[in-house]
Protein backbone atom coordinates (compact mmCIF):
# COMPACT_ATOMS: atom_id res chain seq x y z
CA UNK A 1 0.00 0.00 0.00
CA UNK A 2 1.51 3.33 -1.08
CA UNK A 3 1.42 6.64 0.77
CA UNK A 4 1.61 10.16 -0.58
CA UNK A 5 4.03 12.68 0.99
CA UNK A 6 1.01 14.13 2.83
CA UNK A 7 0.01 10.94 4.68
CA UNK A 8 1.08 12.25 8.09
CA UNK A 9 -0.70 15.56 7.51
CA UNK A 10 -3.96 13.70 6.89
CA UNK A 11 -3.58 11.48 9.94
CA UNK A 12 -2.63 14.44 12.15
CA UNK A 13 -5.96 16.17 11.50
CA UNK A 14 -8.08 13.07 11.98
CA UNK A 15 -8.69 11.97 8.38
CA UNK A 16 -10.58 8.73 7.78
CA UNK A 17 -8.20 6.83 5.52
CA UNK A 18 -9.20 4.30 2.89
CA UNK A 19 -7.42 2.01 0.45
CA UNK A 20 -7.83 3.53 -2.99
CA UNK A 21 -6.15 2.05 -6.08
CA UNK A 22 -3.29 0.78 -3.92
CA UNK A 23 -2.88 4.05 -2.00
CA UNK A 24 -3.79 5.10 1.54
CA UNK A 25 -5.93 8.17 0.89
CA UNK A 26 -8.22 10.38 3.00
CA UNK A 27 -11.91 9.77 2.25
CA UNK A 28 -12.87 12.68 4.49
CA UNK A 29 -11.69 14.64 7.50
CA UNK A 30 -13.51 15.31 10.76
CA UNK A 31 -16.06 17.71 9.32
CA UNK A 32 -17.40 15.08 6.92
CA UNK A 33 -18.06 14.81 3.19
CA UNK A 34 -20.99 17.20 2.99
CA UNK A 35 -19.21 20.00 4.82
CA UNK A 36 -16.15 19.57 2.59
CA UNK A 37 -18.33 19.55 -0.54
CA UNK A 38 -19.99 22.81 0.52
CA UNK A 39 -16.61 24.38 1.38
CA UNK A 40 -15.53 23.84 -2.24
CA UNK A 41 -18.77 25.26 -3.64
CA UNK A 42 -18.64 28.36 -1.42
CA UNK A 43 -15.02 29.00 -0.36
CA UNK A 44 -11.82 27.00 -1.00
CA UNK A 45 -11.01 23.33 -0.58
CA UNK A 46 -7.68 21.52 -0.88
CA UNK A 47 -7.25 17.95 -2.13
CA UNK A 48 -4.20 15.69 -2.07
CA UNK A 49 -4.29 13.90 -5.43
CA UNK A 50 -0.63 12.86 -5.48
CA UNK A 51 -1.68 9.27 -6.12
CA UNK A 52 -2.47 10.16 -9.73
CA UNK A 53 0.00 9.16 -12.42
CA UNK A 54 2.17 11.44 -14.56
CA UNK A 55 3.67 10.23 -17.84
CA UNK A 56 6.11 12.35 -19.86
CA UNK A 57 6.16 12.03 -23.65
CA UNK A 58 9.09 13.74 -25.38
CA UNK A 59 10.83 13.69 -28.74
CA UNK A 60 10.38 14.42 -32.46
CA UNK A 61 7.49 12.02 -32.82
CA UNK A 62 5.52 13.30 -29.79
CA UNK A 63 2.78 15.11 -31.67
CA UNK A 64 2.24 12.36 -34.25
CA UNK A 65 2.32 9.71 -31.55
CA UNK A 66 -0.15 11.44 -29.25
CA UNK A 67 -2.50 12.26 -32.14
CA UNK A 68 -2.59 8.54 -32.84
CA UNK A 69 -2.76 7.28 -29.27
CA UNK A 70 -5.26 9.70 -27.75
CA UNK A 71 -8.67 10.92 -28.89
CA UNK A 72 -8.29 14.68 -28.57
CA UNK A 73 -5.85 16.51 -30.88
CA UNK A 74 -2.57 17.61 -29.28
CA UNK A 75 -1.70 19.51 -32.47
CA UNK A 76 -4.10 22.14 -31.11
CA UNK A 77 -1.99 22.59 -27.96
CA UNK A 78 0.86 25.06 -27.65
CA UNK A 79 3.31 25.32 -24.74
CA UNK A 80 1.42 26.18 -21.56
CA UNK A 81 -1.92 24.72 -22.70
CA UNK A 82 -3.66 21.53 -21.70
CA UNK A 83 -6.80 19.62 -22.57
CA UNK A 84 -9.04 16.81 -21.40
CA UNK A 85 -8.52 13.65 -23.44
CA UNK A 86 -8.93 9.89 -23.44
CA UNK A 87 -6.88 6.80 -24.16
CA UNK A 88 -8.86 4.45 -26.37
CA UNK A 89 -8.65 0.70 -26.97
CA UNK A 90 -9.17 -1.00 -30.34
CA UNK A 91 -12.67 -2.29 -29.61
CA UNK A 92 -14.51 1.03 -29.47
CA UNK A 93 -13.99 1.62 -25.75
CA UNK A 94 -11.55 3.36 -23.42
CA UNK A 95 -8.48 2.58 -21.31
CA UNK A 96 -8.51 5.81 -19.27
CA UNK A 97 -9.51 9.44 -19.35
CA UNK A 98 -6.78 11.96 -18.67
CA UNK A 99 -5.37 15.45 -19.04
CA UNK A 100 -2.50 16.31 -21.39
CA UNK A 101 -0.38 19.46 -21.01
CA UNK A 102 2.04 20.78 -23.60
CA UNK A 103 5.30 21.85 -21.97
CA UNK A 104 7.13 22.45 -25.24
CA UNK A 105 6.74 21.66 -28.94
CA UNK A 106 7.98 18.12 -28.41
CA UNK A 107 7.30 17.81 -24.72
CA UNK A 108 4.03 16.71 -23.15
CA UNK A 109 2.90 15.51 -19.76
CA UNK A 110 -0.09 13.21 -19.30
CA UNK A 111 -1.97 13.06 -15.98
CA UNK A 112 -3.92 9.82 -15.58
CA UNK A 113 -6.02 8.00 -12.98
CA UNK A 114 -4.11 6.18 -10.24
CA UNK A 115 -6.04 2.98 -10.92
CA UNK A 116 -5.07 2.90 -14.61
CA UNK A 117 -1.53 4.17 -14.47
CA UNK A 118 0.11 0.82 -15.13
CA UNK A 119 -2.27 -0.05 -17.95
CA UNK A 120 -1.94 3.40 -19.52
CA UNK A 121 1.86 3.35 -19.37
CA UNK A 122 2.24 -0.09 -20.89
CA UNK A 123 -0.28 0.70 -23.63
CA UNK A 124 1.50 3.96 -24.51
CA UNK A 125 4.86 2.21 -24.58
CA UNK A 126 3.51 -0.48 -26.89
CA UNK A 127 2.12 2.08 -29.35
CA UNK A 128 5.16 4.31 -28.87
CA UNK A 129 7.50 1.70 -30.36
CA UNK A 130 6.60 2.91 -33.83
CA UNK A 131 7.54 6.52 -33.09
CA UNK A 132 10.62 8.50 -32.12
CA UNK A 133 9.51 9.26 -28.58
CA UNK A 134 10.70 8.82 -25.02
CA UNK A 135 7.94 7.77 -22.65
CA UNK A 136 8.91 8.29 -19.03
CA UNK A 137 6.93 7.43 -15.92
CA UNK A 138 7.26 10.60 -13.81
CA UNK A 139 4.69 9.66 -11.16
CA UNK A 140 7.32 9.45 -8.41
CA UNK A 141 8.65 12.90 -9.35
CA UNK A 142 5.48 14.82 -8.63
CA UNK A 143 3.13 15.55 -5.77
CA UNK A 144 -0.23 16.95 -6.91
CA UNK A 145 -2.58 19.20 -4.94
CA UNK A 146 -5.93 20.53 -6.15
CA UNK A 147 -7.12 23.87 -4.77
CA UNK A 148 -10.76 24.35 -5.74
CA UNK A 149 -13.51 26.87 -5.05
CA UNK A 150 -14.40 30.52 -5.70
CA UNK A 151 -11.75 31.68 -3.21
CA UNK A 152 -8.91 29.86 -5.01
CA UNK A 153 -7.49 32.71 -7.10
CA UNK A 154 -7.24 35.12 -4.20
CA UNK A 155 -5.91 32.55 -1.75
CA UNK A 156 -3.26 31.14 -4.06
CA UNK A 157 -2.48 34.54 -5.57
CA UNK A 158 -1.27 35.83 -2.21
CA UNK A 159 1.50 33.22 -2.25
CA UNK A 160 2.36 33.25 -5.94
CA UNK A 161 5.22 35.08 -7.66
CA UNK A 162 3.12 35.47 -10.80
CA UNK A 163 -0.28 37.01 -11.47
CA UNK A 164 -2.70 34.08 -11.37
CA UNK A 165 -5.65 35.98 -12.75
CA UNK A 166 -3.74 35.99 -16.04
CA UNK A 167 -3.65 32.17 -16.10
CA UNK A 168 -6.76 31.22 -18.06
CA UNK A 169 -8.64 27.94 -17.94
CA UNK A 170 -6.60 24.97 -19.16
CA UNK A 171 -3.35 26.95 -19.05
CA UNK A 172 -0.33 25.98 -16.97
CA UNK A 173 2.60 28.07 -15.78
CA UNK A 174 5.80 27.32 -13.91
CA UNK A 175 6.09 29.64 -10.94
CA UNK A 176 6.93 29.83 -7.23
CA UNK A 177 4.36 29.41 -4.46
CA UNK A 178 5.63 30.49 -1.04
CA UNK A 179 9.10 30.12 -2.47
CA UNK A 180 8.40 26.58 -3.75
CA UNK A 181 8.86 25.82 -7.44
CA UNK A 182 5.56 24.54 -8.84
CA UNK A 183 3.58 24.08 -12.05
CA UNK A 184 0.15 25.62 -11.62
CA UNK A 185 -2.68 24.70 -14.00
CA UNK A 186 -6.10 26.37 -14.07
CA UNK A 187 -7.98 23.07 -14.16
CA UNK A 188 -9.99 20.89 -11.82
CA UNK A 189 -12.51 18.14 -11.33
CA UNK A 190 -15.09 19.91 -9.18
CA UNK A 191 -16.86 22.34 -11.52
CA UNK A 192 -15.50 25.33 -9.59
CA UNK A 193 -12.67 27.69 -10.43
CA UNK A 194 -9.38 26.36 -9.16
CA UNK A 195 -5.89 25.10 -9.73
CA UNK A 196 -4.04 21.83 -9.91
CA UNK A 197 -0.57 22.27 -8.49
CA UNK A 198 2.41 20.06 -9.34
CA UNK A 199 5.40 20.24 -7.03
CA UNK A 200 8.31 18.06 -5.93
CA UNK A 201 7.30 15.44 -3.37
CA UNK A 202 9.79 16.92 -0.88
CA UNK A 203 8.02 20.29 -1.06
CA UNK A 204 4.48 18.92 -0.72
CA UNK A 205 4.17 19.14 3.06
CA UNK A 206 5.29 22.77 3.21
CA UNK A 207 2.97 23.73 0.37
CA UNK A 208 0.01 21.89 1.91
CA UNK A 209 0.58 23.48 5.30
CA UNK A 210 0.92 26.95 3.76
CA UNK A 211 -2.38 26.64 1.90
CA UNK A 212 -4.26 25.18 4.87
CA UNK A 213 -2.93 27.92 7.13
CA UNK A 214 -4.08 30.45 4.52
CA UNK A 215 -7.64 29.14 4.88
CA UNK A 216 -8.02 26.23 2.44
CA UNK A 217 -10.21 23.44 3.85
CA UNK A 218 -8.69 19.95 3.54
CA UNK A 219 -11.10 17.80 1.49
CA UNK A 220 -10.98 14.06 0.81
CA UNK A 221 -11.89 11.68 -1.98
CA UNK A 222 -15.48 11.39 -0.75
CA UNK A 223 -16.18 15.06 -1.44
CA UNK A 224 -14.15 14.85 -4.65
CA UNK A 225 -16.60 12.22 -5.86
CA UNK A 226 -19.79 14.09 -4.90
CA UNK A 227 -18.42 17.30 -6.41
CA UNK A 228 -17.49 15.77 -9.77
CA UNK A 229 -20.82 13.92 -9.94
CA UNK A 230 -22.78 17.07 -9.16
CA UNK A 231 -20.77 18.82 -11.91
CA UNK A 232 -21.61 16.02 -14.34
CA UNK A 233 -18.02 14.79 -14.80
CA UNK A 234 -17.40 11.13 -15.56
CA UNK A 235 -15.27 8.86 -13.40
CA UNK A 236 -13.40 6.17 -15.32
CA UNK A 237 -14.51 2.75 -14.22
CA UNK A 238 -18.06 4.04 -13.78
CA UNK A 239 -19.35 6.23 -16.65
CA UNK A 240 -16.52 5.18 -18.98
CA UNK A 241 -15.01 1.71 -19.22
CA UNK A 242 -13.41 -0.54 -21.80
CA UNK A 243 -16.85 -1.05 -23.34
CA UNK A 244 -18.20 2.50 -23.57
CA UNK A 245 -17.94 4.68 -26.67
CA UNK A 246 -17.58 8.39 -25.82
CA UNK A 247 -19.35 9.23 -29.11
CA UNK A 248 -22.55 8.09 -27.35
CA UNK A 249 -22.18 10.68 -24.58
CA UNK A 250 -21.92 14.45 -24.07
CA UNK A 251 -18.15 13.96 -24.37
CA UNK A 252 -18.27 13.16 -28.10
CA UNK A 253 -16.39 16.43 -28.65
CA UNK A 254 -13.20 14.82 -27.33
CA UNK A 255 -13.11 12.42 -30.27
CA UNK A 256 -11.48 14.34 -33.12
CA UNK A 257 -11.75 13.45 -36.78
CA UNK A 258 -8.23 12.18 -37.44
CA UNK A 259 -6.48 8.85 -37.79
CA UNK A 260 -6.27 7.21 -34.36
CA UNK A 261 -5.63 3.78 -32.88
CA UNK A 262 -8.90 1.86 -32.86
CA UNK A 263 -10.75 4.36 -35.08
CA UNK A 264 -12.52 1.69 -37.15
CA UNK A 265 -14.16 0.21 -34.06
CA UNK A 266 -15.14 3.58 -32.56
CA UNK A 267 -15.96 6.04 -35.30
CA UNK A 268 -19.23 4.80 -36.78
CA UNK A 269 -20.88 4.35 -33.44
CA UNK A 270 -24.42 3.03 -33.60
CA UNK A 271 -25.45 4.22 -30.16
CA UNK A 272 -27.85 1.67 -28.69
CA UNK A 273 -27.34 3.38 -25.34
CA UNK A 274 -26.39 6.88 -24.26
CA UNK A 275 -24.83 8.32 -21.11
CA UNK A 276 -27.24 10.69 -19.35
CA UNK A 277 -27.78 12.62 -16.14
CA UNK A 278 -30.62 11.44 -13.90
CA UNK A 279 -32.47 13.36 -11.22
CA UNK A 280 -34.79 11.51 -8.83
CA UNK A 281 -38.20 13.12 -8.51
CA UNK A 282 -39.16 11.08 -5.45
CA UNK A 283 -37.31 10.37 -2.19
CA UNK A 284 -34.33 8.08 -2.54
CA UNK A 285 -30.71 7.65 -3.55
CA UNK A 286 -29.76 5.96 -6.81
CA UNK A 287 -26.55 3.93 -6.56
CA UNK A 288 -24.15 2.34 -9.02
CA UNK A 289 -25.64 -0.81 -10.49
CA UNK A 290 -29.29 0.00 -9.78
CA UNK A 291 -31.65 -0.82 -12.66
CA UNK A 292 -33.22 1.96 -14.72
CA UNK A 293 -36.75 1.16 -15.87
CA UNK A 294 -39.26 2.56 -18.34
CA UNK A 295 -42.48 1.14 -19.77
CA UNK A 296 -42.12 -1.87 -17.50
CA UNK A 297 -38.68 -2.87 -18.79
CA UNK A 298 -35.08 -2.47 -17.77
CA UNK A 299 -33.52 0.11 -20.12
CA UNK A 300 -30.18 0.69 -18.41
CA UNK A 301 -28.12 0.88 -15.22
CA UNK A 302 -26.94 3.63 -12.90
CA UNK A 303 -23.14 4.16 -13.04
CA UNK A 304 -22.78 6.68 -10.18
CA UNK A 305 -25.28 8.22 -7.75
CA UNK A 306 -25.58 10.16 -4.52
CA UNK A 307 -27.53 12.92 -2.82
CA UNK A 308 -26.31 16.32 -3.90
CA UNK A 309 -25.05 18.00 -0.73
CA UNK A 310 -25.84 21.33 -2.35
CA UNK A 311 -29.42 20.79 -3.48
CA UNK A 312 -30.31 17.70 -1.41
CA UNK A 313 -31.69 15.96 -4.49
CA UNK A 314 -30.94 12.40 -5.59
CA UNK A 315 -28.63 12.70 -8.61
CA UNK A 316 -27.02 10.08 -10.78
CA UNK A 317 -25.53 9.21 -14.14
CA UNK A 318 -26.14 6.11 -16.17
CA UNK A 319 -26.27 4.49 -19.58
CA UNK A 320 -29.74 3.85 -20.95
CA UNK A 321 -31.49 2.94 -24.21
CA UNK A 322 -31.12 5.78 -26.74
CA UNK A 323 -34.89 6.01 -27.24
CA UNK A 324 -35.19 7.27 -23.67
CA UNK A 325 -32.15 9.57 -23.63
CA UNK A 326 -33.81 12.93 -24.35
CA UNK A 327 -33.80 15.52 -21.59
CA UNK A 328 -37.12 15.47 -19.76
CA UNK A 329 -37.91 11.80 -20.38
CA UNK A 330 -39.64 10.21 -17.39
CA UNK A 331 -37.99 7.02 -16.14
CA UNK A 332 -37.67 5.21 -12.85
CA UNK A 333 -34.83 3.76 -10.83
CA UNK A 334 -35.29 0.50 -8.93
CA UNK A 335 -34.23 1.08 -5.33
CA UNK A 336 -34.62 -1.92 -3.07
CA UNK A 337 -37.37 -3.39 -5.22
CA UNK A 338 -39.33 -0.10 -5.37
CA UNK A 339 -39.64 1.95 -8.56
CA UNK A 340 -38.64 5.52 -7.73
CA UNK A 341 -39.57 8.24 -10.22
CA UNK A 342 -36.78 10.08 -12.06
CA UNK A 343 -36.14 12.32 -15.07
CA UNK A 344 -33.37 12.47 -17.65
CA UNK A 345 -31.50 15.76 -17.19
CA UNK A 346 -28.43 17.42 -18.64
CA UNK A 347 -25.72 17.98 -16.02
CA UNK A 348 -24.54 19.96 -14.13
CA UNK A 349 -26.99 19.26 -11.35
CA UNK A 350 -26.65 22.64 -9.60
Amino acid at each position, binding site marked *: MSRTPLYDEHKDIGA*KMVDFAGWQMP*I*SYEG*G*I*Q*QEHLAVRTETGLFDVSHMGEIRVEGEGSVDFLRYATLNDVAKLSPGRGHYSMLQNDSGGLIDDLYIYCNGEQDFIIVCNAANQTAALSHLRKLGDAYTVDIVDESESWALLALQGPGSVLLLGRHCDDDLSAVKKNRKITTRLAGISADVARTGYTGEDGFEIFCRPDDAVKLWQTLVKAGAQPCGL*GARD*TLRLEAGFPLFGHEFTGDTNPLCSDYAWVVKDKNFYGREAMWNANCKQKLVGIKLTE*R*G*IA*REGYRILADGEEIGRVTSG*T*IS*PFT*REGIAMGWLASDYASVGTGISVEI*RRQEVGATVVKPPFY
Partner: protein
Amino acid sequence: MNIPNDRRYAASHEWAKVSGDGVITIGISEHAQDALGDIVFVELPDVGQSLNAGDEFGVVESVKAASDLYSPVSGEVTEVNSSLEDAPETINESPYEEGWIIKVKVSDSSELDALQDADAYKATAEAEG
Protein backbone atom coordinates in the same frame (compact mmCIF):
# COMPACT_ATOMS: atom_id res chain seq x y z
CA MET B 1 -16.58 6.57 22.30
CA ASN B 2 -19.87 7.13 24.02
CA ILE B 3 -21.70 3.89 24.96
CA PRO B 4 -24.41 4.63 27.53
CA ASN B 5 -25.15 2.07 30.22
CA ASP B 6 -28.90 2.60 30.11
CA ARG B 7 -29.45 0.39 27.06
CA ARG B 8 -28.37 -2.81 25.28
CA TYR B 9 -26.66 -3.29 21.93
CA ALA B 10 -26.71 -5.64 18.96
CA ALA B 11 -23.55 -6.76 17.18
CA SER B 12 -24.97 -4.98 14.13
CA HIS B 13 -24.76 -1.69 16.08
CA GLU B 14 -28.40 -1.03 16.89
CA TRP B 15 -29.23 -0.09 20.49
CA ALA B 16 -32.44 -1.01 22.33
CA LYS B 17 -33.72 0.93 25.35
CA VAL B 18 -36.72 0.14 27.54
CA SER B 19 -39.11 3.10 27.36
CA GLY B 20 -41.75 1.72 29.67
CA ASP B 21 -44.99 -0.19 29.15
CA GLY B 22 -43.45 -2.98 27.07
CA VAL B 23 -42.15 -0.49 24.50
CA ILE B 24 -38.53 -0.55 23.33
CA THR B 25 -36.89 2.40 21.54
CA ILE B 26 -34.31 1.51 18.85
CA GLY B 27 -31.52 3.50 17.20
CA ILE B 28 -27.92 3.10 16.12
CA SER B 29 -24.78 3.64 18.19
CA GLU B 30 -22.36 6.53 18.05
CA HIS B 31 -19.76 4.15 16.64
CA ALA B 32 -22.16 3.28 13.81
CA GLN B 33 -23.03 6.86 12.89
CA ASP B 34 -19.36 7.81 12.96
CA ALA B 35 -18.44 4.94 10.65
CA LEU B 36 -21.24 5.84 8.22
CA GLY B 37 -20.38 9.54 7.97
CA ASP B 38 -23.02 12.08 6.98
CA ILE B 39 -26.39 10.33 6.93
CA VAL B 40 -28.46 11.71 4.08
CA PHE B 41 -31.43 9.37 3.86
CA VAL B 42 -33.43 7.19 6.22
CA GLU B 43 -36.03 4.63 5.16
CA LEU B 44 -38.49 3.87 7.96
CA PRO B 45 -40.98 1.02 8.36
CA ASP B 46 -44.74 1.54 8.61
CA VAL B 47 -46.39 1.91 12.00
CA GLY B 48 -48.12 -1.39 12.71
CA GLN B 49 -45.51 -3.50 10.96
CA SER B 50 -44.62 -6.76 12.70
CA LEU B 51 -40.99 -7.60 13.22
CA ASN B 52 -39.04 -10.63 14.37
CA ALA B 53 -35.67 -10.18 16.03
CA GLY B 54 -33.10 -10.04 13.23
CA ASP B 55 -35.53 -8.74 10.58
CA GLU B 56 -34.44 -5.81 8.46
CA PHE B 57 -36.69 -2.87 9.40
CA GLY B 58 -35.20 0.06 7.49
CA VAL B 59 -32.15 1.59 5.88
CA VAL B 60 -29.79 4.45 6.68
CA GLU B 61 -27.87 5.84 3.76
CA SER B 62 -24.73 7.91 3.96
CA VAL B 63 -23.21 9.80 1.06
CA LYS B 64 -21.18 6.74 0.13
CA ALA B 65 -23.33 3.71 0.96
CA ALA B 66 -26.62 2.23 2.17
CA SER B 67 -26.77 0.27 5.43
CA ASP B 68 -29.58 -2.02 6.53
CA LEU B 69 -31.08 -1.73 10.02
CA TYR B 70 -31.91 -4.92 11.90
CA SER B 71 -34.45 -5.19 14.68
CA PRO B 72 -32.90 -6.46 17.91
CA VAL B 73 -36.34 -7.46 19.24
CA SER B 74 -39.65 -8.95 18.07
CA GLY B 75 -42.91 -7.04 18.22
CA GLU B 76 -45.03 -4.39 16.51
CA VAL B 77 -43.81 -0.98 15.37
CA THR B 78 -45.78 1.61 17.39
CA GLU B 79 -43.95 4.78 16.37
CA VAL B 80 -41.35 5.92 13.84
CA ASN B 81 -39.24 9.07 14.03
CA SER B 82 -40.55 10.79 10.90
CA SER B 83 -38.49 13.93 11.58
CA LEU B 84 -35.58 11.86 10.23
CA GLU B 85 -37.06 12.10 6.74
CA ASP B 86 -36.30 15.81 6.54
CA ALA B 87 -33.38 15.83 8.95
CA PRO B 88 -31.52 12.51 8.61
CA GLU B 89 -28.40 14.15 10.05
CA THR B 90 -30.09 14.08 13.47
CA ILE B 91 -28.80 10.52 13.77
CA ASN B 92 -25.23 11.83 13.42
CA GLU B 93 -25.81 14.68 15.87
CA SER B 94 -27.71 12.76 18.54
CA PRO B 95 -27.62 8.99 17.92
CA TYR B 96 -28.88 8.10 21.42
CA GLU B 97 -31.56 10.77 21.98
CA GLU B 98 -33.15 12.84 19.20
CA GLY B 99 -31.85 10.36 16.58
CA TRP B 100 -33.99 7.43 17.81
CA ILE B 101 -35.42 5.55 14.83
CA ILE B 102 -38.40 3.36 15.82
CA LYS B 103 -40.36 2.19 18.85
CA VAL B 104 -41.52 -1.40 19.13
CA LYS B 105 -44.07 -2.95 21.50
CA VAL B 106 -42.39 -6.24 22.37
CA SER B 107 -43.95 -9.62 22.85
CA ASP B 108 -41.01 -11.05 24.81
CA SER B 109 -38.85 -8.62 26.81
CA SER B 110 -36.37 -11.39 27.66
CA GLU B 111 -35.02 -10.95 24.13
CA LEU B 112 -33.09 -7.99 25.53
CA ASP B 113 -30.99 -10.39 27.59
CA ALA B 114 -29.55 -11.80 24.38
CA LEU B 115 -28.16 -8.37 23.48
CA GLN B 116 -24.79 -6.99 24.64
CA ASP B 117 -24.39 -4.64 27.57
CA ALA B 118 -22.29 -1.47 27.23
CA ASP B 119 -19.00 -3.17 28.13
CA ALA B 120 -19.51 -6.08 25.75
CA TYR B 121 -20.53 -3.72 22.95
CA LYS B 122 -17.49 -1.55 23.61
CA ALA B 123 -15.33 -4.60 22.88
CA THR B 124 -17.33 -5.31 19.71
CA ALA B 125 -16.98 -1.76 18.47
CA GLU B 126 -13.28 -1.58 19.27
CA ALA B 127 -12.60 -4.88 17.52
CA GLU B 128 -14.03 -3.37 14.33
CA GLY B 129 -11.55 -0.52 14.51
